[in-house]
């Protein structure tokens, strides 16, 4: 009778441990999914920044900026000096 009770208690204990472990697994899995999602978001951001960098470093934009805002223009023929 005692043995049966002990076995029953153990059964209950193991069942609780299993439920807890399963729950813990799900909590951790959820945390992992959040991290994965964050990785995807960072990758998206990286792509976006690469495109932005490429767009802003384009020759056309630099030329426009140099001429328009910095007032830089190619030197005229008289201003050119060739060195031997």
């Amino acid at each position, binding site marked *: 009778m005692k043995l049966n009770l002990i076995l029953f208690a153990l059964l209950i204990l193991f069942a609780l441990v299993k439920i807890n472990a399963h729950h813990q697994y799900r909590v951790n899995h959820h945390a992992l999914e959040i991290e994965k999602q964050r990785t995807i978001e960072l990758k998206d951001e990286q792509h976006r920044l*690469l495109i932005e960098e490429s767009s802003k470093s*384009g*020759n*056309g934009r630099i030329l426009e900026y140099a001429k328009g805002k910095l007032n830089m223009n190619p030197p005229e023929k008289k201003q*050119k000096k060739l*060195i031997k």
Partner: protein
Amino acid sequence: MRSKIKKNHEFFELSKFRRRLTLLVLLTLFCVLLSRAFILQGMQKDFLQKEGFERSNRNIELYAYRGKIYDRNNQILAASETVRSVTLEPRRVKFKKGDKKKLSNLLKMKIETLNKKMKTKRNHIYLKRKVDPKIASKILALKIQGIDTEKDYRRTYPDHEISAHVVGIYGGDGKGLEGVEYQKNDYLSGTQGNKKILIDAKGRIVDNLSEVRVPVDGKDVHLTIDKRLQHVAFQSLKKTINKFEAISGSAILINSKTGEVLAMANYPSFNPNKRMKKRSPFVRNRAVTDLFEPGSTMKPISVAAALEKKVVNVNTKINTGNGLYRVGRRLIADTKPHGIISVKEVIQTSSNIGATKIAEKLSKKDLWQTYSNFGIGNLSGINFPGESSGIIRNHTKWTDHYHMSASYGYAMSTTVAQLARAYTPFANKGEIKNLRLFKNDPIKIGQRVLSIETSKNMLEIMETVTMQGGTAVQAAIPGYRVAGKTGTSRQALKGGGYGSVNERKYNASFVGIAPVSNPKFIMAITINDPSRGSNYGGVVAGPVFRKVVSEALKIYSVTQDGIEIIVKDNEVDSQEI
């Protein structure tokens, strides 16, 4: 002891009626449970399982990025970026006062269109796809019930129309439609993944169920194109076409040592970031797809054939007469009479009669063989989608007139890319190089088609073209020695022939090599039907060469061939050579 047991037994003893009643109640309850279980498990099993799965199971797509396209300096030419698609649930949607107007303004959509979309019977529709994330955030900030956004991806081309013909277009659904996007589609395309997940009551993902397929991103492609030179080539081409009111133009700049394509531009172009309702006629990469009669740009090849066969030498005198020469029924003409000139001057002045008389000394087979060795009628090695191989008849089918026409670049057709390739032997001590567009493609050993001596002689001959008295002084670059050849060829009309003087259309071309002392760059340009000012290759296409190759020489820090300094009144002034 026995009496005690009896007593206990008696204590639990129930009357027959009570025993039966208890049994009946228990049996009834059991039957109820059994029937309920039967209904749930047997009769409603499928429905309940479906409902259960729908609440807890989800299939999610895992996006694989399409590979990026880079230029030779790792600058992005094409990449995918995240955008949002605005969704609408017509049954749930509730607008507060002013929301509809704000939404239509943000979406740049008329209120009538919005109303029309809301009348749909479907549960879920897309109001607008591929919306900028910043606009999507503003839409979400309006907090309109039934309006939401979903993640989406869009192919972006930061260079817009400048590299459009090379990079091509991506049509969605994993299919490239034009250019490198089409050519390297299998390489660029990733494999989409998916997985079945389990969610809890709060909607959190708590387990992967099965069928997890990991997404595999597409591979990146590195081109040999230099974005800086591509920009200069495109802008110069655009400026020239507008200035001379031409129909279109194409240009290609290659590294003469390796055959790498540094710039390949066409104008008019198209913006690959904009969706085209109709397929534009300017979408194809005309530098590799469109054929034209190369005209005088072929003369260096026919002269090289004659030098190689030793039927003439650089100083052999050719009598071009009064500028008119009859071959059978046909009359060959020069732009002006040149009289007796050397082989060098035949190229410098671009004399058709001179080229014809030199070609007369060659057999049809020898001339055809030389053209063929120089890649005319063959693919350039670039492997671009839709590339034309050019047309040149086999020498067995050549008439005498065909033979003469071929000597100055008529009766055959090439692409601009083939034209640039055909000049690689002059810059590579007689070796022809295949063109390369992909950085990782192996460099193939060039095939020898000319002797070192002939190629050196030809470079020197072609240098006179950009010197005073030549046909392309506009292509000369201060500080550098430039060799090249102009071409002003008449366009064949649809019905055949070249038409009367008023009907005639021209292709103005130039192919140049710089610097002559140690050739680094070859550039071929053709301008289709320049109709204002001039139609000469040197005048129209020469300045494009000068602008682009000057930049290339500067960017790649190529040492100058020779410079002069003139000091006047203590002022340092420059003189263009």
